[in-house]
């Protein structure tokens, strides 16, 4: 336990001395709320007194994304809707810092000679990554809320909103990033290249899921003639169609994207607006307990594989 804590402290000492962490935090904490606030100010200035606001919709829209609650929700949701997502960029960055760099700087032999408890070193690296992610998400929540508070000084917005829900979703999203972090560590360690590992972390899940989509389309083209075969094929098809519910990306971002429908409603979209083919990819229809269970499964598999590799591999 002490060795793990030592490893966490050592990794954080290193992590907080990396400029790239502050660059990412700056973009996430400051740029996003600033853009949202400027957009809200422009909307308010141009539309609030116009015919478009006869039903008070503009105020509703501004409350939806520029109020303190709206900003907090945006800070959670926006990184999950980017491509590649902001979350996976952060995870890849920390994997590069804590695992990839050990290889590029030939530091494994030094690190493991200084602290020979390999599992403690790995646990320390995972915990340090999770702590930096917590700082990143916590900082985003704080800065976004603060920007929303500033917005209340000149925008028709209030503090109202389900704060408990958004805070809970932040925590759940952070916990689910553990699986992504472990996948990133595993890939970087497996391919023995920081750069290739980081590229794989960003693109591999999407690539596999895209491959599924292509195969799914092709499977529909297969002619079926016998009745029995039709039933079999339908069963298979149902299982195949249920597969996205276990996809890495769909489940990983489920907490952040959980607020997408309420957000769309707040912008005036009709109740129960259908997102069409995007629905599956955005994890709509996936419940939070389901997503948490699936990601826990992924974390277990990735964690076990990484631990096995770290424990057994010779350090050259």
């Amino acid at each position, binding site marked *: 336990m002490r060795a793990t804590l*030592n490893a966490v402290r*050592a990794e954080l*000492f*290193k992590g907080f*001395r990396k400029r790239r962490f502050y660059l990412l935090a700056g973009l996430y904490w400051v740029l996003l709320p600033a853009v949202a606030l400027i957009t809200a100010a422009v909307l308010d200035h141009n539309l609030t007194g116009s015919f478009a606001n006869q039903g008070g919709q503009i105020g509703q829209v501004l409350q939806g994304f520029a109020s303190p609650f709206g900003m907090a929700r945006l800070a959670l949701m926006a990184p999950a809707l980017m491509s590649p997502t902001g979350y996976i960029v952060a995870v890849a960055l920390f994997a590069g810092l804590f695992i990839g760099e050990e290889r590029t700087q*030939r530091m494994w*032999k030094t690190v493991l000679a200084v602290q020979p408890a390999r599992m403690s*070193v790995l646990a320390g690296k995972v915990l340090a990554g999770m702590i930096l992610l917590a700082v990143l998400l916590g900082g985003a929540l704080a800065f976004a809320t603060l920007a929303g508070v500033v917005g209340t000084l000149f925008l028709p917005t209030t503090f109202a909103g389900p704060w408990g829900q958004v805070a809970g979703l932040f925590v759940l999203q952070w916990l689910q990033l553990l699986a992504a972090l472990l996948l990133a560590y595993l890939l970087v360690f497996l391919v023995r290249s920081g750069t290739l590992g980081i590229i794989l972390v960003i693109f591999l899940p999407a690539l596999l899921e895209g491959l599924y989509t292509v195969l799914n389309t092709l499977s529909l083209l297969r002619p079926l003639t016998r009745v029995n075969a039709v039933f079999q094929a339908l069963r298979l098809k149902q299982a195949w169609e249920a597969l996205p519910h276990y996809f890495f990306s769909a489940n990983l971002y489920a907490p952040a994207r959980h607020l997408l429908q309420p957000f769309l409603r707040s912008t005036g979209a009709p109740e129960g607006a259908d997102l069409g083919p995007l629905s599956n990819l955005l994890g709509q229809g996936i419940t939070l307990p389901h997503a948490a269970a699936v990601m826990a499964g992924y974390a277990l598999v990735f964690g076990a594989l990484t631990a096995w590799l770290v424990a057994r591999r*010779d350090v050259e």
Partner: protein
Amino acid sequence: MTAITASALTKRYGHVLAVDGLSFDIQPGEIVGFLGPNGAGKTTTLRMLAGLVRPTRGRCQMLGRRVPGPSLLEVGTMIEEPSFYPYLSGRANLHHAAVLHGGVPERRVDEVLEFMRMELAAEKRVRAYSQGMRQRLALARALLWKPKVLLLDEPTNGLDPAGIAEVRAALKTVAMQGVTVLISSHILPEIEKLVERILAVDKGSLRFDGPLQGLLGAAGANTVSYELEATDGRALLDALADLGLKPTPHGDAGARVAVPAALATDLLSGLATRGVDVLEARRGAASLEDAYLRLVGAEGRPS
């Protein structure tokens, strides 16, 4: 309790047998030189002792406990090219290692920096360090937690003569405190000045394990080296060649030559009969380099 034990240590990489059944014991406080030509298996052995590489067969113990294990926390290592986080300063790199290892007070970082005469460069980022400075910093890091055993692979690589002398002095100081040192180096005169015992490996197998004097004595028993001065250097070299020897010129009218022990007594009379007027003849002791080359052959000449 032995400080280091290797029992039938074997490492195979695919078809390549890097280390082949190596066995030795090193007692606490011993300073042992680990010699062998490139590719002899020295670094692989040191890596196995440091718990970085798993032996294919055999086992090693450090301070009476099996490797890998907690006993490695009492071992300081410097294996091959030292590595650091280049964006951190020398001091920050040592601080990182101290925290990672645990139980190292902050003032110890200053102590090892001072011990290795690195105080002035401590705040510079490591990316700006010369090879010699990196070697010193690596040695400082290996000493951070006051280890009982030091495993050093080419610790004087890249150092200038003054740096080599400083590292030698530092290692002697450390050894006087009872630290066991296993040191591999190609700079044989340095090893000769530092160690009491030699382990020599070749092609993964142990070729010699014994006191330094034993190895030198074995070499000295067969050959005697002479440094000769004559009135005519050219005539001296010709006469030595005529005696079937392979002299090397030395100074204006001198030569160095290794003479088989059986011919040593007849050397001067042989030169006199060939008309060479010898002014001075100094008989030298066999060097570790002579002994090493005799042991591993000319192909093992250090690079």
